[in-house]
């Protein structure tokens, strides 16, 4: 049985590709190295936790109630505390980043809390540690709010007609009140996103896009040195294009597959399981195949092919979110990403990494990528026919 011509051509292209150091570096070594780098960079930083300094200049009843709040079980998961004798030493600690915020309970705080001119709790923050500062402020606010709610309850009761002679009794009664609004925390039903689960596919797809460049360039090199002419003696143009597309498909799948396997096993990236990951990967690789053919048809020379491919590669990678985590970007950028096949692929991998591993999760992205590949192929076919580009 004779091997189909397209397969022979694909085999030749693949042999060439795997002998080329740049293709191996770009398809395998570089994405793995960068994914490893990202995994290391963000290891241990996926939890937000900080230490706050506490300066208690009061030691009264209210100050100790505040002390209990800031060391309570609920607060401990986000903040630890460290006591300082003086405000100066706590400020120095904040300056040197030993602590990320400081609470100062002023002298006379407990006594003044019952009177008409209560003293304030002070929170000291640093300009570079705004998030810790905001959380420290919120923790102090939630304590103060409850105290104020109790004070306000007494004042409202008196305004509404309760006898002002009963203030002590009212205050005691108000301090036992339960807030009328319950905050109930429930799981969102999704997995927490690991940085590597986003950037492993991100980098894998980014380096996959480089295949457009070296395949398109390779085509023009073959045309220059006569290989293409010799091939067309034995094969029809369609078979040559099919063979070359097949080579990109195999190379791209091998590159993305290796990335998925290695990052899943070594760094715990969640690609959504072998079947679903492949179902997303194949239409992405097909889009790359379609784009490669388009660049070949549009370009007139090796240099032009290289230039166009670079622009397509970096343009898509930037728009699709391979470089930056688009979830933190403005909605407009997130919408723009959905004009790119890699944007859809990344959306699918993100949904698989954070949600259920279901076919319905990836259905829309797969359809979108296949539509992209089809549309690009149709444009390529029209251009090919119009310009009557001859392969020979």
């Amino acid at each position, binding site marked *: 049985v004779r091997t189909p011509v397209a397969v022979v051509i694909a085999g030749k292209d693949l042999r060439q590709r795997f002998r080329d*150091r*740049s293709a191996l*570096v770009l398809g395998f070594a*570089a994405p793995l190295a960068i994914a490893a780098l*990202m995994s*290391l*960079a*963000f290891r241990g*930083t996926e939890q*937000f*936790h900080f230490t706050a300094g506490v300066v208690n200049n009061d030691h009264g009843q209210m100050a100790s109630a505040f002390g209990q709040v800031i060391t309570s079980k609920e607060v401990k*998961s986000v903040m630890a505390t460290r006591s300082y004798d003086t405000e100066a030493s706590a400020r120095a600690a904040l*300056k040197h980043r030993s602590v990320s915020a400081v609470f100062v309970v002023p002298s006379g705080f407990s006594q003044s809390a019952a009177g008409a001119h*209560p003293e304030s*709790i*002070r929170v000291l923050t*640093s*300009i*570079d540690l705004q998030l810790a*500062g*905001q*959380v420290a402020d*919120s923790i*102090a606010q*939630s304590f103060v*709010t409850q105290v*104020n709610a109790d*004070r*306000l*309850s007494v*004042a*409202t*009761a008196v*305004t*509404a007609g*309760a006898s002002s002679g009963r203030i002590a009794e009212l205050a005691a009664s108000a301090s036992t*009140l339960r807030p*009328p*609004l*319950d*905050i*109930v*925390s*429930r*799981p969102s039903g*999704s997995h*927490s996103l690991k940085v590597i689960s986003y950037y492993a596919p991100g980098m894998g797809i980014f380096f996959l896009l480089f295949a457009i460049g*070296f395949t398109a360039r390779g085509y023009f090199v073959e045309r220059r040195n006569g290989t293409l002419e010799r091939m067309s003696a034995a094969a029809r143009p369609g078979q040559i294009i099919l063979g070359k597309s097949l080579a990109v498909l195999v190379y791209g799948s091998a590159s993305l597959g290796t990335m998925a396997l290695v990052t899943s096993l070594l760094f715990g990236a969640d690609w959504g399981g072998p079947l679903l990951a492949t179902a997303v990967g194949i239409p992405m690789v097909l889009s790359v195949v379609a784009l490669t053919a388009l660049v070949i048809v549009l370009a007139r020379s090796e240099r032009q092919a290289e*230039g166009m491919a*670079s*622009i397509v590669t*970096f343009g898509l990678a*930037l728009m699709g979110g391979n470089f*930056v*985590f688009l979830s*933190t*970007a*403005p909605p407009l950028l997130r919408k723009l990403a959905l004009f790119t096949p890699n944007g859809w692929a990344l959306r699918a991998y*993100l*949904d698989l990494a954070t949600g259920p591993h279901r076919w319905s999760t990836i259905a829309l992205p797969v359809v979108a990528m296949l539509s992209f590949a089809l549309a690009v192929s149709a444009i390529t076919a029209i251009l090919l026919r119009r310009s009557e580009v001859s392969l020979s």
Partner: protein
Amino acid sequence: VTAATIARVTLRRLARDRTSLFFMIILPVVVIVVVGASVGGFSRFKVAVVNEDSGRLGAGIVSALRHSTAIDLHVFSTADAARTSVRRAETTLAVIIPRTTSADLQSGHPGKVVVLGDRTSSSFEGAFTAVSAAVSNQSARLQAAGFAAQQVGGTVDDHLGEADRAAASTAALQVTTSTIDTVRQVLPEGFSYSAPTMLVLFVFINALAAGAGIIETRQLRIYERMSAAPVRRRTIIAGETLAYLSISLLQSVLIVTIGATLFGVSWGDPIAAAALIMVWALVGTGAGVLSGTLFRTPEQASSIGPALGIGLGMLGGCMWPLEIVSPLMRTVGHITPQSWAVDAWTILLSRKGNLVDLAPQLGVLALFAAALISLATYRLGRRLT
């Protein structure tokens, strides 16, 4: 033939290459926009809210969340949409105000606010604390009105007005928050982060990719023809080095100009900035010429070069601030020249530093430049023989 003539020829060849121009001008600008728009929001928690309650209470809670300085609020119409935004990490958590919240309170039951999120995810607890504080504010007036109703009769609604009046006349306990420093130790967010870091990233990447030019010249045997001119080896090396220095400087000036005019980036003390740009251009020059002698084919230089540049940029704090990575990676990052350059820009932009403040970073970068240029000229010299 002088070094300047050789440099001019190299530059002219580069200017004709449209791809190089894309990498030099368009790509950095687009990256500045994308990274500038995305690197931000570290100072507030992104919170989704869905208000299913048509009563006054629901609107009050939304307003309290909106006024919290710790919260960047995103309003969604359905719980599913809010849940998806949490899952995709577009928001840290979602606050759902159920349909019955106001009615529950009317009937004397506690109202309920549901917070959806993953407790193990980064920043959940912080965001939860901020939401609790905002919701508690609403809770206080309801508690007061309810207490009054309990003491003197009537309904919660009857006493809400009195609660508001009492709140206005009662001095409340306060929390005062103050910042102990005014000078940042890290780069500001937005374009002031992306413009200087992308300058550092792209000058280096372009220099590495431009190494393809030297390889092409070698392959076309132009150096051999030059030597027959006769031109001394030293002149050829000086010419190529001058060309790469000009490319790096040109690109830096472009990014600085675009950053200042389009994105309002203030580049700090001009003398210190100029010195930093010059030293970084020298680092790029060394890396570019070295790339021209290390890689075998132009394709290797123009494809592996950028990958290497991106990797070093990530390590050095060009893609994200090193303040958010682990301390170990922060230390490791400082083996790259990029991290020293980003540190120097931080001193310039955030701490309004001058040439003297920048001396340690400039010194380290000068050493990198000297090492790279020495190695590059040594290798180029050997290639020419």
